[in-house]
């Protein structure tokens, strides 16, 4: 007969309540990991989605995500004619806050040239943008619906398509539009002094026909190094490979969040260990008389240790399973994307098993110290 299981059955209500309480704690641990993975996925989603071999940015800058970068739009034409370049497209990024349904919609506007690199997106509902000055594609998390009109600055746009899981590294959902529209949006969100300067002198280069980066795709046999070297000869331009861009994002943008979340997850795991340890210790002390009786009638230590370890593992694994179910049920209510990776889940499962075993140490030690003679007498 399995003593651990029989004891659990004896106090089933209490055991379930304990597991549910523990599951909330473990659910938060899983949630924190999923939030971090979501941050990475969102931050790299825009970069990876561009499918760029090279990012041409303002010289000396690490733009366009880590730092501001502005280059003239016609740089694209100069880049296009470089040997080894297969395609190039100018791109604009701008975080905006738009009055929407009585509140504020914060979004990350991406402006790309039609039929050029940077414009490819996976439409989950509706269609892609076909013309300038009226259409946009939005991420579902904006709350926008197909066919809905949205006023940005002084222009009205119609939502023609929806995408999913597309957000900036800050978690703002993406709104995609043509490059021209995005440039106008960018100008309208400039300070008024800049707008006046552009109106007085359109060739000033202060804003107007500038973009944040040029996305470059190379021919399959082209030398990335040679192309970068040629582009860097123009002192006002810089070139980054896609892995370099990813590294800048992960180091500059996500690194602190990773440390923050990692530290918090570590603290939560320590708290979980203490909580499991206390629960196991209390459960063991509640059975002090029964354990003393078992020892007195001749039960070996391994019977007592097995009883405690099995209960600790049952509690940890039940808490883990319930926690996983709860956090997955709740994931759509989080403002930012949660990404659950099997490797994280398995690693956490392993950690929970180790935590349960470690947390049982006090309970096991206490149980082994119980004097069988204490079963005798009142």
């Amino acid at each position, binding site marked *: 007969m399995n003593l651990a299981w029989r004891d659990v059955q004896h106090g089933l209500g209490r055991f379930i309540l304990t597991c549910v309480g523990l599951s909330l704690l473990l659910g938060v641990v899983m949630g924190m990991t999923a939030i971090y993975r979501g941050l990475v996925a969102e931050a790299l989603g825009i970069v990876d989605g561009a499918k760029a071999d090279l990012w041409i940015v303002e010289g000396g800058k690490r733009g366009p995500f880590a730092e501001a970068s502005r280059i003239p739009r016609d740089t694209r034409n100069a880049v296009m004619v470089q040997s080894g370049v297969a395609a190039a497209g100018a791109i604009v990024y701008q975080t905006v806050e738009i009055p929407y349904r009585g509140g504020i919609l914060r979004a990350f506007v991406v402006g790309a040239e039609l039929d050029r690199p940077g414009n490819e997106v996976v439409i989950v509902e509706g269609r892609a943008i076909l013309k300038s000055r009226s259409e946009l594609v939005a991420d579902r998390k904006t709350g926008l619906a197909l066919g809905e009109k949205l006023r940005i600055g002084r222009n009205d746009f119609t939502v023609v398509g929806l995408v999913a899981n597309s957000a900036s590294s800050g978690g703002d959902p993406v709104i995609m539009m043509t490059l021209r529209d995005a440039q106008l949006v960018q100008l309208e969100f400039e300070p008024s002094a800049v707008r006046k300067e552009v109106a007085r002198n359109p060739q000033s280069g202060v804003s107007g026909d500038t973009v944040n980066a040029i996305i470059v795709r190379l021919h399959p046999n082209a030398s990335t190094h040679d192309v970068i070297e040629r582009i860097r000869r123009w002192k006002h331009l810089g070139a980054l490979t896609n892995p370099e861009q990813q590294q800048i994002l992960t180091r500059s943008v996500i690194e602190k969040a990773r440390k923050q979340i990692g530290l918090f997850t570590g603290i939560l795991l320590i708290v979980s260990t203490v909580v499991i340890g206390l629960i196991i210790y209390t459960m063991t002390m509640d059975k002090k008389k029964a354990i003393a009786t078992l020892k007195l009638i*001749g039960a*070996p230590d391994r019977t007592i240790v097995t009883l405690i370890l099995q209960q600790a593992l049952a509690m940890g694994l039940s808490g883990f399973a319930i926690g996983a179910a709860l956090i997955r049920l709740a994931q759509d209510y989080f403002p930012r994307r949660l990404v659950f990776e099997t490797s994280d889940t398995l690693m956490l499962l392993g950690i929970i098993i180790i935590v349960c075993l470690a947390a049982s140490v006090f309970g096991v030690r206490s149980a082994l110290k119980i004097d069988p003679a204490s079963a*005798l007498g009142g």
Partner: protein
Amino acid sequence: MEKPARPVVDIARLSKSFGEGPTAVHALVDINLTINTGEVVGLIGPSGSGKSTLLNCIGCITEPDVGEIRLDGREIYHDKWMIDDLRRLRLETIGFIFQFHNLLPFLSAWENVAIVRTLMGEDMEQAKARAMDLLGYLQVDNRANSPPAKLSGGEAQRVAIARALANEPRIILADEPTAALDSERATIVIELMKKVAVEREAAVIVVTHDEKIFSRLDRMVHLRDGRIVDTERPDHA
């Protein structure tokens, strides 16, 4: 024909102290005692007289400082005996009965009895059959599936006796087994233990303050300040 009695517990020159120096407490001093099969012996004495220490020494729980204890012919506590050997001896040779039955609350009545057999390595089916036999012998088999919390005091103590008999012990150690029972139930329990002692050729040692069962004992060993001060055979009226 009744089998001749033979010694099951044989204690010689047993002493046990707790602490050292002037504050040492001499719990047992030069105890000599022999208990035979079929005998129900009471250890009587005030608190602190050494009854529990003596019970613990016989029960392979507390090692004496000096002296010998032979259980069923085997000398225990000699140098080669390890803690696990003593545990094994408890499991195979001794049955314990407690003041408050000490049934495991998370097991049913039959499981409380069967667990002893499973600890001895018997499979569950055989252990259950043996447990049901014992519960039948003690006339509580109708409550076999009940948890201890649903048993009356008398029923719980019978199940506890069944558990003590599960390993077919040579020695039964009972610590105040009737203290929580009324007079009628106390008499039933002590008679039951006498029956067990005779039929199963076991020695029963009872620590008790319960005067109403004194007359039912075969022998009363009076202890005071760790010494045996008197041994008497009650008048079985």
